[in-house]
Structure formats: structure tokens, C-alpha cells
């Protein structure tokens, strides 16, 4: 194809971000239109990639920094792993623009930040050069930081700083790992040029010692795991979500957390399979801990949004568990779970984030009986919760049942059947906290603790954004193969490489 679609996926939102940034003063109110147009174009491009005949042929590579000692290229590529994330990013950004149509506080900056985030996210998911990957990773951090600290709740500065420090320290650790790999690869190939391209480093590292792989795996894994996040490096997440604006939360949980699991599969598994094998049980232990701890964390929360934030920890633990199985089924459905969780959690954060604007508080004990006054709100919340607790027929189930099945196969093979009990416990707890939350928020007597006279139901634009997600959640729930057909070739390629069994 002649059009460089992948570059456009980065360039289009970048132009959009710059354009909206300078729409100050009177023009502010048109910022959303501009942002909408640019994100819609991006979504169209993403769909073109999704339906492309040969995704591999879309790859692009431009020299960026080429010296005698170092080679960094602007290389982009998509495959079954990244294409779903690219689609999800483009979709969620557009939906957030639609959802935030009523944002009145400096809408130009808000939309500029959104689009800037899209630039970074697209970059991370498409990069095929370690240096580019790292740069793009950092690019996502900064807009998110400002999003929280400018548009957030009362404790936004604390949350923003916490978010920044946590993820920044993590990414620096990751950077050390990346440099270690690049230099080691240069030594192995013996060319003397430190080339950061995936295509140069990955084959070279395959020849590195197990010790090297084990160490570097630990560094990279730490960097990615904090982003996912996993227990015990998760405490930035509930705070960031509680304070972030609705749109920010949707992107943060919907696609940003997936950067962590994406990195683990893309780099830790692809480049460092020996490291993965070495740390397998640690990965599984962390995953199980996150799943159960996250679920228990949910039960104790009184803030609706914080509860959903904890549920993300639990569900991303499921992704980690699938990866930890190092089996074809596990990784396939871990990727599916990333996608499913992106769709579902977007609904959850939209609905729960909205509660603050619509009713005035997100504190569950102050709410009650909202279904009578806000039926559409109740409907969307219920669909979101049901999808998230893994109701069969909706997309969440396919990210859960097969992952646990893959884990079952793993524990059977390793004679540790009892470990499956953690998964079963989490299934029970998940249903418990969602239903209990619904009982206290939507049902029962209408609350008298707060003034509901100004409470209003989901607006038209919000309804559109939510309805799109609901349709997708149902569509992929009934026909999971629509997403699996992208994932399976990628995972079987991993299997051929011997990364997974």
C-alpha cells in the first residue's frame, strides 16, 4: 500500500493535538469538533489496518538517529497482538471525545491532552524499535499527568504526582533493561553498532546467557508490572482513578494499563523466553495475589470509581495469569482478556465517573434507589457490571473462562490443583462486590442523604458512547472468534518460536 497508514495513525492525532492546543479564547468551543474529526479519522485508519489483507506489509521503517555507534529507527509494525490495541485506542479516544462533549473547563487543553495521549499509545502499540517504544511510553505519561492534575478531583495533585513517580521510576528501570539488551545484542552480533530495532535485538538476545535473560526479564517485567498494575505496586492506580476526570479514567484503564501487559508479551516473552521460564512461578504468584487481593479490595471500597479501579487490578491479574501459564491457550486468552477488559472497563468508568456529575457524589453509602430516577444510567451500569463479572454471552466471559481453563491445564501438569481455588474464589468475590454495589446504588429505597432534585439521566451524547461499547461487548461475547482470529496466528507464531507451549 502506498499510503503510510501506520505513520498516519501517529501523525493524525498529533496534528489534532497541536490544532486543539492553539484553539484558545472564543474558539474553545470548537475544540471538541476538531478533536472529534481527528479522532474519527484515526479510527477509520485503525479500521483500515484491522481489515487489511496483509498486516505485515504495512510495516514502515525510517532512519532516525544513525551514527557509527548507535542506530535508532522509526519503525512501526502491526500484528495480531497490537492491532486489537490500536483499534481499542482509536475507538476509546473517539468515544471519550463524544462523552466529554459537555466539558466546559478549558476544552481545548483537554482535547489536546487526549489526542497527545493517543499519539503515545499508538506509538507504544506499533513501535518495532526499543528506543521508539521507550520514547512513546514516556509520551503517554505526560498528558496523563496533566489530565489528572488539571481536570481531577480535590486530591488531584497528590494523585498526579503519585502516578507520575510510580510509573516514571518503573519506566526508568525498564530503560535500564532496554539498554542492557541493546548493548548485549551489539556485543553478540559484533557489529559494534548499538541498534535498537526489534528485528536486530530479538534474534541476538536469543543467544544470550540464561543469567542475562533472567536479570533483564526482571527489570523489564518490573517496569511493565507497575503499569498493569500488580499487587504490591498498585497503590497509584486507585488514587489516580479516584481523582482523574471521567475521560482520563476511561483511557487510563481502557488502554494505558494494557501497555504493561502488552510490553510483557511483546518484549519479555518474545525476546527473553528463558527469563519467562525462570520467573514463571513468580509471575503466577503475583497474578493470583492480584486477582484475589484486588477482588477483596473492591468489597471494602465505598467510592464507586475506586471500586472499579480495584476491579481492574483483579482483572489485569487475570491477564497476567494467562501469560504466566506460558501456554498457547493462556496467552491467546490473556490477549483476549486485555481487549475485553478494555471494552468493559470503559463502560464501567464512564458510568461510575458520571455518577459524580449526575448525582453529586460517588460514595456508595450515600446512594440508593437510583434506578427509579435514572433508568438508562441503571441499565448501562448493570450491563457493565454483568459483563465485568463474566456473564456468559458477553465479552468478559471469554477473557475469564478460557484463561482459568489454561491455568487449570497448567496446574494439572504441575500437580498443584489447589491453586485453582484462588481463581474460583475470585469468581465468587467478583459477583459479590458488583451485586452488592448495585444493590446499594441502584436498588432499594431512594436515598434521602443527598439531594436528588438535580439528578439527571444519561445524556444523548453519553448514551451514544455507551451504546457503542455495549454493542461491541455483546458482539464479541456472542462471536469471540471475531477477535480470536487476529490473536491466534500471532500466538501460534509464538508457539513456533518455542516461547509458549
Amino acid at each position, binding site marked *: 500500500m502506498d499510503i503510510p497508514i501506520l505513520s498516519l495513525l501517529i501523525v493524525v492525532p498529533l496534528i489534532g493535538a497541536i490544532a486543539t492546543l492553539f484553539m484558545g479564547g472564543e474558539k474553545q468551543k470548537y475544540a471538541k469538533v476538531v478533536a472529534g474529526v481527528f479522532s474519527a479519522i484515526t479510527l477509520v485508519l485503525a479500521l483500515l489496518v484491522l481489515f487489511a489483507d496483509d498486516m505485515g506489509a504495512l510495516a514502515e521503517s525510517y532512519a532516525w538517529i544513525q551514527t557509527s555507534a548507535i542506530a535508532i529507527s522509526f519503525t512501526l509494525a502491526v500484528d495480531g497482538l497490537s492491532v486489537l490495541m490500536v483499534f481499542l485506542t482509536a475507538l476509546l479516544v473517539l468515544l471519550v471525545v463524544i462523552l466529554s462533549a459537555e466539558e466546559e473547563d478549558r476544552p481545548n487543553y483537554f482535547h489536546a491532552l487526549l489526542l497527545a495521549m493517543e499519539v503515545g499509545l499508538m506509538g507504544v502499540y506499533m513501535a518495532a524499535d526499543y528506543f521508539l517504544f521507550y520514547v512513546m511510553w514516556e509520551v503517554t505519561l505526560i498528558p496523563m499527568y496533566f489530565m489528572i492534575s488539571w481536570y481531577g478531583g480535590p486530591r488531584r495533585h497528590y494523585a498526579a504526582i503519585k502516578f507520575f513517580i510510580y510509573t516514571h521510576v518503573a519506566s526508568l528501570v525498564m530503560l535500564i533493561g532496554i539498554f542492557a539488551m541493546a548493548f548485549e545484542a551489539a556485543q553478540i552480533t559484533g557489529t559494534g553498532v548499538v541498534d535498537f530495532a526489534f528485528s536486530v535485538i530479538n534474534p541476538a538476545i536469543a543467544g544470550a546467557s540464561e*543469567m542475562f535473560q533472567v536479570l533483564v526479564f526482571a527489570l523489564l517485567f518490573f517496569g511493565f508490572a507497575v503499569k498493569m498494575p500488580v499487587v504490591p505496586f498498585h497503590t497509584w492506580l486507585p488514587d489516580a482513578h479516584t481523582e482523574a476526570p471521567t475521560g482520563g479514567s476511561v483511557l487510563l484503564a481502557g488502554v494505558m494499563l494494557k501497555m504493561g501487559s502488552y510490553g510483557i508479551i511483546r518484549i519479555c516473552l518474545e525476546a527473553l523466553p528463558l527469563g519467562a521460564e525462570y520467573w514463571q512461578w513468580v509471575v503466577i504468584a503475583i497474578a493470583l495475589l492480584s486477582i484475589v487481593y484486588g477482588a477483596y*479490595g473492591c468489597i471494602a471500597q465505598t467510592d464507586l470509581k475506586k471500586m472499579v479501579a480495584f476491579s481492574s487490578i483483579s482483572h489485569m491479574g487475570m491477564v497476567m495469569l494467562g501469560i504466566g501459564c506460558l501456554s498457547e491457550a493462556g496467552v491467546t486468552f490473556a490477549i483476549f482478556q486485555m481487549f475485553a477488559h478494555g471494552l468493559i472497563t470503559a463502560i464501567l468508568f464512564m458510568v461510575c465517573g458520571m455518577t459524580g456529575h449526575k448525582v453529586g457524589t460517588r460514595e456508595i453509602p450515600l446512594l440508593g434507589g437510583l434506578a427509579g430516577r435514572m433508568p438508562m444510567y441503571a441499565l448501562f451500569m448493570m450491563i457493565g457490571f454483568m459483563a465485568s463479572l463474566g456473564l456468559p454471552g458477553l465479552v468478559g466471559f471469554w477473557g475469564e473462562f478460557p484463561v482459568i481453563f489454561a491455568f487449570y491445564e497448567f496446574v494439572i501438569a504441575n500437580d498443584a490443583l489447589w491453586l485453582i481455588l484462588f481463581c474460583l474464589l475470585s469468581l465468587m468475590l467478583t*459477583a459479590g462486590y458488583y451485586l452488592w454495589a448495585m444493590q446499594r446504588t441502584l436498588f432499594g429505597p431512594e436515598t434521602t442523604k443527598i439531594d436528588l432534585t438535580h439528578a439527571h439521566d444519561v445524556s444523548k451524547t453519553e448514551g451514544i458512547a455507551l451504546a457503542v461499547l455495549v454493542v461491541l461487548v455483546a458482539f464479541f461475547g456472542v462471536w469471540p472468534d471475531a477477535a480470536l482470529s487476529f490473536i491466534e496466528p500471532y500466538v501460534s507464531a509464538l508457539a513456533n518460536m518455542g516461547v509458549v507451549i
Partner: protein
Amino acid sequence: MFIEYTWLVPLVPMICFLLIGLIGRKTPEKGGYFAIAGALISFVIAALISYEYLTGDTYPNPVVESIQWFVIPGSTDFVINLGYYVDGLTCLMMLFASFISTLIFIYSIGYMGDQGERKNRYYAEVSLFLTGMLGLVVSSNFLEMFIFWEVMGLCSYLLIGFWSFRHPEGDAASANAASAAKKAFLVTRLGDVCLMAGLFILLGEFHSLDYSTLFDPANIAAVDSDMLTLAMFLIFGGVIGKSAQFPLHDWLPDAMAGPTTVSSLIHAATMVKAGVYLVARGYPLFIQNAEVMLFVGVIGGVTAFIAATMALNNMNIKKVLAYSTISQLGYMILALGAGGYLVALGMGMEGAEGAALITAGSAGMVAGCFHMMNHAFFKALLFMCSGSVIHAVGTEDMREMGGLGKHMKITSLTMLIGSLSIAGFPFFSGFWSKDLVLEIAMEAGHDGTVWFTVMWILAIITAFMTAFYMFRMWFMTFMGEEGHATQHCHGESPKTMTFPLIVLAVLAFGSGFLILFGLDAMVSFTVTPDAFIVGGGEAGGFHHFEHIFTSPYTYLTIVLALVGIGIAYLMYAKKTMNPGAFNKDGESWLYKALTKRWWFPDLYNQISWKLGYGVARGVNFIDRQIVDGTVNGLSGAVVGGGDALSKVQSGHVQDYSSIVLLGISVISVLFIVIAKVMGGI
């Protein structure tokens, strides 16, 4: 020619659900007609399929058709299919489920008539429910079945909580409905999690979840029998949850917070039967181990007994019926367990003795399924009658009723037929099937283990209690002095409500005779060396008739039923016997235990509170104080001074670049040290 369209059976209600959900908002009045039409079309298709299947010889048994849905990759792939599976059991289930649904939807036109805009929601949800029930029945594999199983669970949750906000009777009732809905979902979820675990094992062992693969004796022989046994125990856990068996039975009485039509459809006639259906469907796997079947039978017997005791002194007309539903479900499970136990024993033996046991045991399947169908008719009838009464008097408390017989002739008469049927009065439908259940239990006690004799005794006592509490209910409602709610009675319900009652009353009386016309052949279970076959067996016909009336035990149950009815008459109609004399006016410990439902609700509360919220509070404390505390403490230590947090909150990135830099240097040093020590790089 019709059988190829089996997939339409669940699809038609699904389309109705979507139609009502999408366009129904504009015309809430029409929703009901869509739902009725959907159920009726499904029934007609189901009837055509059944007719074609049962009369034609052109079809294999079972008829299976499926397409590949998706694949779970592995060293050998796990293929998940989507399709339909038709045999006698499927036909039986889809016929009575769609038929009763049609009647209940018609009844709903009258019963839910005053609900305004909510009707739209109601009809959408019941249509979705019907999709779940019919889908469950025609599914061709366990995973597909499980999906519909959960869809039904969702609908049950939504419909129990139908009045969970803005309840016409006020806030307390809303709160009650909300809590009942949650309880129903969570308790059944516990069973479902077990069921899922069972499916993992089956999928892992068989590499498929298709019935046709799993029920093949050659495949069964090839798998690890211990794992299979574990899987079947776990799957039965799902049955315990869904069919409200002991010890997860306690959600069903609470579920009565929903509209009575819902209780009738979901919590009596159809959804709760899904568990029984699962045992019957999974029979080839269940009978692989006699212990599993013993467990199934004992759970069934104990459930039948315990639930019946709790119905004895309940004052709420719907709750009495709810307990009786649990009790009758226990009967069905007992029949399946006892029969399966004999089959399992027989399969372990060689020669004629084994073959005889298998033949004897396969009567359990017939008894269970027969009772399931009869129960669907008479219990749907009883619930709808109680709905008619509640509609007229506006209360569920039987103490406020009384003397309603004069005001509501059709309701009282049809309910009498239902009560006679469930009490096992001769020639009414419940009589035939209950007798078969008792017989198979006794046979399993005789040829198998003494445990089934114990279960038989429990079942006999249950039969007596059933007759007593049903007639206690009937006399308290329709006879005696007029209670104060009776004085506000609106009179007989509208025709849309009485018509279904009459139709069902005819069936509640007559459905038992279907066994004379080959119903037993439809759900017979035959074991051959290379297949387990459901349906297509030899019809017993009048043999059953002869058999029942020559057995002395039949007369024992008839006498017990009559005694139960008689005592109820003396206590509650004639009032010559004072019930207070037996329970020390409600002061005896037994009476209190029954009122407290044997403390099961308290037990559930304690467990969920301690294991759920208690642990969660602990986790939250650790999270805030220890995990987050360490983080905040560390950052405090780095910048120096205890006011780190307040500084962090000041929000200037520059102040904290120092933390970042320090962090990097610490980690870099650590990294270098580790690298040196381990000798890498």
C-alpha cells in the same frame, strides 16, 4: 424437515426480547403481545419438531447438528461448538417450558396490567428468560448449556428484583426485593462456580464439551475416572445451586419477592428444573460412579424432607409454595440419584444380574422426568392461583385471608385440583409420578444401600407433610371465617387470568395419564455397550397402572396423604383440633427452628459477612496502612521529614524530580551490584 430449524426455538424469544427492548419503550402496552407471540411460536415449532422426531424413523437418536464456534489452542486444540441436540428429553422439556410460558404470559396481561411503563421491562426480561430456558434445553454441549444457564440466572436476578426500586408497597419492600435478588444470584453463583470447575475438568479430560463426545462409552473409558468423579461432584454443585437443593436452598423462598408470575414461571415451572435437567442430561457421566449417585440421591432426599418441614408453619402463601417447590425438586433429584445408583451398580457387574439392575435403575430417569413435567403443570397452576388470590386481596399473609372460596370460585376450584395433585391424591398427576419416585427409592434401598431406605422413609414422611401443608394452605385461604383482607376482595380475577388456570388445572389433573401413552418411552434410559440412549425405549403403558395398584406401598402413601388432608381439615377448616396444642402456641423449639428456617439465613449471613466483608476490611487496612504507608513513608524519608505527604500534595513536579533521580541512582547501583554478584553481563 422441522428438526433442522431447532435453533429457531430459542431464537424466536430472543428476537422478541430485542424487539421489546428496542422499540417497546414507545408502546409499553404491546410488549405483552410480542412476548406471547414469541412463546407461542416457539411452542408450535417445538411441537412440530417433537411430532416429527417422535413419529418418524428417519432420524437418528439423538439428532445433533453443530458448527464450530471457536477454538482454544493447545497441543491438541479444544474445539468449542455451537449447535442443537434433540432427543426425547429435549422434546419433553421444550414442549412444557414453551407451553407453560405461553400460558403465564397470557396470565401476565391481567396480572401485570396496572404496572404502566414497567410492563415493557417485564416482558423483555421474561422473553430473554425464555430464550435462556429453551436454549439450555436444545444446546449440544456443556458450555453452550452453561451460557444459557447463566442467562436464566441473570433474568431470575432481574425479575426477583423487579420491584427493587419504587416498590408499590414502600421502601421496606424495595429493600427486601433488592436483597433477595442479590441473594439469589450469589447463592446460585456459588453453585455455578463449582459447575464451571467441573467443566474445566471435563474439557481437560475429553478435549471437548460436546454431549455426543462426552456420552460415548469409549471416550469415557479412556479418561481418568477419579477426575471424572470429581468433575461430576462439582457439576452437581451447580445443580444444588440452581435447583435450590440443600444446603443452597435458602435463596428460593426469598425469591418470592418477585412478581407471582415470575415465581410461577422461573421459580417453579422452568428455571429451577434446569438442575434436574442437567442431571438427566448428564446421566451417562453421572452413572459412572455409584458414590456420586448416592450423594445425589441423599441430597435430594434430605432436601425434600427439610423443605417440607419449613412449609409446615409458614403463614405466607407464596413461601409455602416455594418450600413445596424445593421439596418436590428434592423428589426429582432423589429419583434420579436412586435410579442412577442402581445403574451404576449394574454397570459394575457382569451378566444377567447387572442387566437387571440397569433395567431397574433406568426407571429412576423416567420417574424424575415424569415428576418434573407433572410438577411444572401443577406448581405453575398453584402459583398462578396464589397470584390470583394476591391480586384480589392485596396481601400474601394467609391469616388475613380465609373464606375466599365464595368470592373466587374458579381460583379456589383450580387451586384445589393443584393441591390434590401435589398431595398425591389418587389419579391426579402428582400421584403417579410421586409413586414412581418412592418406588425407585425403595428399590435402591432394597438392591443397593440402606441409605436409600432412609431416604425412602424421609420421602414417605415428606409425602404426608406435603398433603398436610398444602391443605392447610387451601383451607386457610378459601374456607373458614372471612379474614379482614377478604372483605376488600375484588372478586374473581379477569378472564386472561382464569383461562390459563383452567387449562393448567386440566393438565394438573390429567398429565399423569400421559405415561399410559408412551411418555416413559420418550425419556427412557438404555445402556448398551457402545452407547447411552435417551428415549426410544419400550413403553410400559398399562403395565404401570397394574404395577401401582398391586403394590402395598401405594396404599400406604394414599393413606398418609389422606391423613395429612384430614388433619389439615380438622385444624383449619373445622377447627376442632388446635394447632397450638402441638407447638405450645409457637413456643416450642421446633416451631421456632422452623420459623427461623433452621437458621440457614443466619448461617449464610455470617459466612458471607466474615469471609467477604471481614477479610475485605483487613485487606483494605493492609492496603492503606502498610502497602501505601510504605510508599508514602519511603518518599517521606527520601525528601526528609514527616511532612512529605503534604509536600507531595503541593504538586510541583520540580520538587520531586529529586525523588526520581535518587530513585534511579539507588536502583542503578542495586542493579550493578546484583549484576556483579551474579557474574552476568
